[in-house]
Each structure stands twice: as C-alpha cells, then as structure tokens.
C-alpha cells in the first residue's frame, strides 16, 4: 500500500467527528479494520458518503433481494443506472424511478428540478434517449399554506427542468394527505428508448483507460446531500438548505446530447452520472462493477471555485456532471465531442490493475481503500420488525359502524364531495405546466389511466404509469404493496398494454423503528407476490427511508412505476366514454369493503379499516379478459375503478375529457345486498369499467376466461347527465356539475390562496 498522508489543516479524527459523519461506533470499527489504521479526514468523508442509507441500502438490501428480477423481457436488471427491457423489434426501454424527498421538503423548486435532472441522467447514461418523464407526488393537505407552497414549487421545478430539456412529462399521480405534512414525497421517473445493441453499462474496464470528468464544473454545492437524505427531517433541516443542489437544465440538455453522441461514437467504455455522493460514489461503484482499481487526482477536476479540498471535490453534488471511462488514446476525440456542445472534459484518473481505490491530490495520496472494500464491506442490517399497535388498531376498527352523515342521504352530495377532493380531482392545474406533447410521441397524455407513447418505426406503443395508495399500505402493508402493483398493471392494461416490468421507489420512515421496518418488509413481500403473479419483474429502483417529520412518519409509500407494451397501435384505448348507445360493462365484482377508502378519508376524516382484498390471480384474469376484448376490437373505452369507487370512476368516464363530455344511465341494483356507500364508493380491487358496442362478445370473453362481468348501463349524450340506480337511493347529476366539481377544485384552491404566491415570492422560488 502507498503511504496515505493527512492534509495539513485537516481536522483530527475524533469520536464526535465520526458521529457527525453519521457513522455508528461499529461502522467506524469496520473502517479501522478495513484500513488497518485511522482514516484521514478525506477517507472519513468518502466512507460517510458511501455508507449512508441513501447510497448503501444497508437496511434494505437483504429485503430487496427477495424481489423477482428475471424474465425473458429483462435485458438489464437492478444494479445499473437504470433497468432495461426489450419490447420487440430490437427496441429496448430503459426506465427508473427515484426519490428527491428531503431536498424538496426544504427547497421545493430546486429539490424537484434536480430530482428530474438526476433521473434523466440515469436513463441517458444507459445509452437511451429519454422520451418521457413521470412523477409521483405526495403532499399534506392543501388547506395549509406551507403545503400549497411546496406543491406549487415542486410542480414548477419539475416543469421548468423537463420543459427546458425537452422531454415530455406525460403521467404520474398526486395525492394529498395529512400524513405527508412536513415531509412531501417527490419521486421522478424517466423512460428512455434505445436499440438493444446500443446499451452501455457503468462498469470500469481496461487497465490504462483514462477516467474523465465531463460536463459542469464542480462546486461546493450539495456536499453531504446523500447523508442529509439519510436522516429524519426536523426543525433543524431548514438550516441544511444549502445542501440542496441547484439545477441547470440547459447544461443538462447539452450533456444529454453530448453523452448520447459520445456513447454512439465508440470512444468510451463506460459512463455514469455523478449523482448522490458525486464523484466518490460514481467512481467507487464503477470500479466495483468492473472489479478493477482506480486512481483519481482531485487536483485535475475542473472546479468552480478556488481552494476546494479533496474532501469537498469528492463529496460535491454539483449537478450535470458525468464520469466517463474512455479508450486509451481516444481522449481527444472525447474532448472534441464535448467541445462541440460547449462542455469540458478533463482526464482526472485512470483504471489501474492494482486492486485499490486511490485518491490523490497531485502527488500526495489522500485516500486509499483496498479492492472494492468500500462497496463490498458496507454493513448490512437485519433490524427487528414488528407491526405497530396503532396500525393494528386502525385496521381492526369496525368502519361499518361509522354512522353516515345526514347529507349522505343524497349520494350525489357524497359523489360531488369526492370528485372535488384534491386527491381525486383533476390535476390539470399541475400538468398544464408540463410540456407533455414535445417529441410528438404522446398518444395519451396526462389525465388518462396511463400515458401512451408511440414507438417510431414500429407499430407498437408503450404505456407507463406510477401508482401507490399509501393509506392501504399503512393499514396493511402486504395487501397495500400488492395493490400498488396490481393497480399500476390495471392502469396500463386499460390503455391496451400488456404489463411488462416495474421500477419502484420505496418511501418509508426510519427503518430502525421496528414498526417501520415491518411495513417495509411486508410491503416488499406484497410487491413480490404481485410481480410474480403478473410476470412484471423489478428492474431497479430506489429506497428512501427517514421520511419523518416531527409529527411522525409518512404513510409507507412504495411507488410502482409500471411499463407496458401495446403490440399494435390499433389497440390503444382511452378511459372516457366515446359513443352514445354503447353498453357499459363492469369486469370484476363489487364487495362490501369500505376500509381504507377515499370515502372514509374525505367524508369522515378517517383512515381506518382493512384495505380491500387483492387476489393477484383474479387481477391477472381481469387484465387478460380486458386485453383479449381489446384485441378483438370490441372495447371503446376502459377505466380502472380505484379511489372513490365505481361512482367516481363512472363520473370520470363521462366528464374527464372536457372536449367530449357524455352521460350515462347505470343500474347497480344487482348488488342491492350492499350498503349504498359500499356499492358506490367502496374500492373493491380487480374492477374495470368498459364501454362497448358488442356487449355479448365482451361478456362471452369474460366468461371464457373466468372473470365476473355484467352489463350495467348505457352511454348517453351529455345532456342526459349521470343516472345511477341503486335500488334504495337512485340519483341523477348533470354532467356539467360533475365536471365543475372535478375540474375546478384544485385551480380554485391554488388561485384563490394569495398567501402561497406570497410565500413563493419571498422564498425566491420563481426563476
């Protein structure tokens, strides 16, 4: 080993300094054993950056490895920058979802923007051209000015970044629930396209190959961002605002074009985003994947300011940077491509045969770790898991005993209330700030069950969607995990797509608390069951723990990003009713379940009861029946029944598309043994509403596949409104009244609450 020297002026390593770096005593012991000596300050920084939860998955890895990751469609599973699956015709899709929760909690605009930037880079470093962005957002109630400020800032951050880079934002979901007060969730997903033979991996190879730092210069921003994301949010978090990185979508766009040109040029062997923990993480991971040594000279890294120490350069999370391993002798060719895009590329290191991870500052060695120990020696924890008493009590509460409000005698009142609840209401206020049509592939954009993008040069399309009902997961994590996958699958199926594979973003509280780790373990088990049953392997994702504010943990929220493929453009199906006279058929069955429903949350302010049962075999069959009918050309529209139950789903079918509003006359008397509220607003799983010109054929297909199905009504012109016959409490509401409740709710809240705008101004969010 080389002599490692402390830099003059570096702090002395003390137990307090070790603690400040987030290392436990036993973790520090591991470092001492690994090195056989006391680490330098630089080395302590490196370990802290790599062994925090965000980078190391130390609490989640043993559970994650139980997830199914294989299938004939999978080209690249977890472990790379993004997962890759084949969709036929030699075309592959790279996709991944990632969280940026903590930064967004204290600096919503930049937090969300850099979240979008990071996930874009993860996808284009695979050699894929990004073609779509999605985002899955959770906020506290919009009654609160701080939450409105966060919502507005996050939406603007996502929009400004994606719009500028020129990647359409096509889908996602936004949920408002007091459980997310103080700790919003911001998960961004990116989808890219590549030819199967264009795939490149982030694996350092070839002794003597130069390592280059490419893109933006390195500054002091975002140092310890990853470790900040590995602790609970508190009143002191605001002081860590400078740890939030600042995004520059213009540089990102240049980097995107330059990187793709670089990858296709054949001058490089590997490329990786410098994301969380910056240069440290990207170089150590690349070396570990390639099972080679690397040496990095921090004095050669292009910096933004003078006097930066190796510690700062290694841990900076300055955005829009890439680490590239080029072929020896091709450095100038690489520089030329970057220069065309007005970007810099500097050689900062080399792949070496000696199995070490070495950092120098000029000639002085400031850090050195044996082999890939930094990555492989990272601790893994199996911590105790035990369901929290509170969750058990909530689940076991008899929600059927909750008395109806007097107003509920008129179900129209309840329906309109639910349609204007921000979680159900139209999110147009947000998605109209996202360019959703650029690149002209968007066949179905935001507002449908899932987005659909055509694949140029083929007769295929893909369907993408994110989903998770955190309330279900809080009440029963295993069932909730299963439902998250099943609902996402149902959503893409409603557009005519075969569910193909998932990426996931697992947002949970502090894993060292047994009740949180129980949620995590069980939710992953539920995801596993669903992925196995639906043949949708997990191709990657991200875990975000420590989503806790002083008021407690967020709902456990394992967000599923689902990818489906539509084999023929003719099969693309929309969610809203199309033609007067079509028959409305319900695939699946209604049940008495109301536990965990949006109805209970909105009307009774209660999050309790067992969430609806989710039988994956039935889910698979209902999807099979739907796709068979779509392929048979007999489906005019298909819409999943989810939040707010069948009544909300029917209302959406008649008025979600404002350019083609319809009416409907529906008879649900078949289920008159159910209470009105369970029938109308219960959220029984495995249900899809279709409209068809050939009901007998649809019913026959369902029967052959073994799915309960029933003709329940007729599509009417808009003037007829929505009539729902339930036996005891039939009612009628005009389509325009439904539309007003649904479409105006969020604009009304956001545009008539001046305090949120004032907050935005004072916080300097507007850019």
């Amino acid at each position, binding site marked *: 080993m080389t002599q490692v020297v402390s830099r003059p002026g570096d702090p002395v390593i003390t137990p307090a300094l070790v603690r400040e770096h987030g290392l436990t005593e036993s973790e520090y012991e591991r470092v001492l054993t690994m090195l056989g000596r006391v680490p330098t300050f630089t080395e302590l920084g490196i370990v802290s950056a790599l062994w925090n939860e965000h980078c190391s998955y130390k609490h989640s890895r043993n559970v994650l490895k139980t997830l199914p990751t294989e299938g004939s469609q999978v080209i690249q599973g977890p472990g790379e920058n993004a997962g890759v699956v084949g969709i036929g015709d030699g075309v592959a899709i790279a996709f991944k979802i990632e969280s940026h929760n903590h930064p967004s909690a204290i600096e919503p605009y930049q937090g969300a923007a850099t979240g979008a930037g990071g996930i874009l880079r993860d996808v284009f470093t695979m050699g894929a051209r990004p073609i779509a962005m999605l985002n899955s957002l959770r906020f506290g109630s919009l009654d609160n000015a701080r939450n409105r400020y966060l919502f507005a800032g996050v939406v*603007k951050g996502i929009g400004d970044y994606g*719009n500028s880079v020129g990647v359409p934002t096509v889908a996602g979901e936004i949920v408002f629930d007091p459980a997310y007060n103080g700790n919003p969730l911001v998960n961004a997903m990116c989808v890219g396209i590549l030819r199967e033979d264009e795939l490149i991996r982030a694996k350092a190879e070839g002794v003597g190959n130069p390592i280059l730092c490419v893109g933006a210069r390195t500054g002091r921003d975002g140092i310890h961002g990853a470790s900040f994301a590995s602790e609970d949010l508190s009143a002191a978090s605001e002081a860590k605002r400078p740890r939030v990185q600042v995004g520059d979508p*213009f540089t990102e766009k240049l980097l995107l074009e330059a990187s793709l040109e670089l990858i296709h040029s054949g001058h490089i062997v590997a490329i990786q985003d410098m994301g969380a923990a910056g240069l440290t993480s990207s170089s150590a991971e690349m070396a570990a994947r390639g099972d080679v040594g690397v040496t990095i000279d921090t004095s050669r890294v292009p910096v933004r300011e003078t006097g930066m120490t190796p510690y700062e350069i290694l841990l900076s999370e300055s955005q829009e940077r890439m680490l590239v391993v080029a072929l020896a002798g091709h450095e100038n060719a690489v520089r030329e491509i970057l220069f065309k895009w007005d970007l810099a590329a500097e050689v900062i290191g080399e792949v070496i045969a000696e199995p070490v991870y070495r950092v120098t500052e000029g000639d002085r060695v400031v850090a050195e770790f044996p082999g890939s120990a930094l990555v492989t020696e990272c601790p893994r924890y199996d911590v105790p898991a035990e369901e929290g008493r509170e969750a058990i009590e909530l689940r076991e509460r008899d929600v059927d005993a909750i008395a109806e409000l007097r107003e509920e005698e008129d179900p129209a009142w309840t329906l309109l209330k639910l349609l204007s609840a921000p979680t159900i209401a139209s999110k147009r206020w947000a998605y109209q*700030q996202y360019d959703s049509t*650029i690149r002209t592939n968007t*066949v179905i954009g935001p507002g449908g069950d899932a987005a659909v993008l055509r694949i140029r040069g083929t007769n295929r399309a893909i369907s993408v969607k994110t989903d998770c009902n955190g309330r279900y997961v809080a009440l029963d994590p295993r069932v909730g995990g299963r439902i998250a996958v099943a609902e996402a699958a149902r959503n893409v199926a409603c557009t005519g797509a075969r569910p193909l594979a998932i990426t996931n973003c697992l947002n949970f509280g502090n894993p060292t608390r047994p009740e949180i780790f129980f949620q995590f373990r069980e939710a992953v088990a539920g995801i596993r069951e669903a992925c196995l049953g639906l043949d949708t392997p997990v191709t990657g994702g991200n875990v975000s723990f420590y989503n806790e504010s002083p008021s407690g943990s967020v709902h456990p929220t394992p967000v599923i990003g689902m990818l489906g493929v539509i084999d023929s453009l003719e099969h693309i199906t929309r969610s809203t009713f199309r033609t007067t006279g079509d028959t409305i058929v319900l695939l699946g069955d209604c049940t008495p379940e109301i536990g965990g429903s949006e109805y209970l949350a909105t009307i009774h302010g209660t999050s309790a009861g067992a969430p609806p049962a989710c039988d994956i075999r039935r889910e698979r069959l209902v999807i099979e029946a739907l796709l068979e009918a779509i392929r048979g050309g007999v489906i005019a529209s298909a819409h999943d029944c989810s939040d707010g139950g069948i009544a909300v789903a029917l209302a959406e079918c008649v008025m979600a598309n404002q350019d083609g509003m319809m009416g409907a006359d529906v008879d649900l008397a078949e289920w008159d043994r159910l209470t009105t509220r369970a029938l109308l607003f219960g959220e029984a799983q495995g249900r899809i509403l279709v409209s068809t010109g050939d009901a007998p054929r649809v019913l026959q297909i369902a029967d052959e596949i073994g799915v309960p199905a029933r003709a329940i009504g007729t599509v009417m012109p808009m003037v007829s409104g929505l009539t729902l016959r339930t036996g005891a409490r039939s009612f009628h509401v005009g389509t325009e009244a439904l539309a007003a409740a649904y479409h105006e709710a969020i604009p009304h809240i956001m545009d008539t609450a001046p305090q949120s705008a004032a907050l935005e101004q004072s916080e300097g969010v507007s850019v």
Partner: protein
Amino acid sequence: MKFGIVTFPGSNGDYDAYHAAADALGEPSVYLWHKTHDLQGSDVIVLPGGFSYGDYLRAGAIARFSPIMTEVLAHARRGAPVLAICNGFQIACEAGLLPGALMRNASLRFVSRVVNIRVENAGTMFTHEYYNGQVLAIPVAHGDGRYTADDDVIAKLDDDGRVAFRYCSSTGVVSEQNNINGSISNIAGIVSEGGNVLGLMPHPERAVDPLVAVPDGLGVFHSLLALAGA
C-alpha cells in the same frame, strides 16, 4: 422543397420540426448546426422551439448572435420563407426579423395544452391553405408567450393584415377569456412586412400526425409546399 431546421444549444423542438417536414410531408430536411454558416441550400428555414441558451438573460437574446443567424437574416432579406416557432418566434423578434417581443405569460406559469387559434389572414404564404376565420386546434407549450409591441406597431400589424393567428374559443370567438398568455389583442402569430417570416407561439409541427394530435398544423406546411409547386 428543402427544410433546414436550425439547432441552437438548448433547441428541443428541432426534432419535431424535422419529423413534420421529413415524415408527414416527405420533404428533404436537414438539421443546421448553429455554429456553421451554411444553410445547405434550404428553401425554408425553421427556427424551432426550445430553450436556446437556456432562455438565460432573455428568451432568444443570445441565440440571435449565433453564426448561422447571419445567413438566416440574408435568407429572409431575399424574401425566402422563415418559419419561427415558439422559441424561434422569440429569436426572430430579438434578431429584428419581426417586431415586438414575447414576455412572461400573464399567469406567470408555463402553459402546455391544445388551444384554439383563428386564422386572421389566409392570404400569406404560410396560411393560404386555410380560410379566413378558420378555427384550428394546435398545442402550445411556453412560459414566455405574451406578445407585446407598442400601439403603433400593433395598429400597423392590424392595418397590413399581418396578424396571422389569434387565440380564440372553439367557436372562433376572440376574447380575454381565451387569451391564454395575455398577448395584446390575443395575437398568437404574425408575419413580417415582406410576409415571408411567420412567427407564432403555437406548434404547428406538433399537429401533423393524426395519431398524436388533430392535424391542424399541416396547413402551414402545405401552404409552403404549394409555393414550390407553383
């Protein structure tokens, strides 16, 4: 008819303009790199949408200094067609090809949706495939689309019939309610004094393929093609 689509750093609508010309029309098309001085014999120059130079400083303010703009200006002086879309419209105004300026939307928010625009003058080289008063459905996607100019300029644009499109309702009513970004007189697009430069905020190049949009933007391209056929 050859379409030359200029790519500035930060352009992102170049791809759609290229595919509209090459795929929907089947015309020869080339990307023109902004650092060059060569229009490669293009008959129509497209200044595409996007965020050239990140829209830093001011939308379009830096792109006008790109080397290729010298040739684009000469092309326009010869009376040859320049189609300036969204960020291209902003660049054209900054470069003096068109009067006025595009300011931040009145809502202060980016707006992305399909809007209705009314054809105000079907006599230009970009619009003669439409008819006066025709209502089109075309996507917009911009944060700085509020067209502004002083009263004299607006009066002259009106007098000369140089307002090509105005934002309107689905039935063609032009009112403040349909003014999506606060533009003066709902102006969505104008032509130059010579009639050979069209600047507009909506994206006709995104409205050419029935699979993804109502193909109401085709008329702009067909109008240009008819020139070549003449």
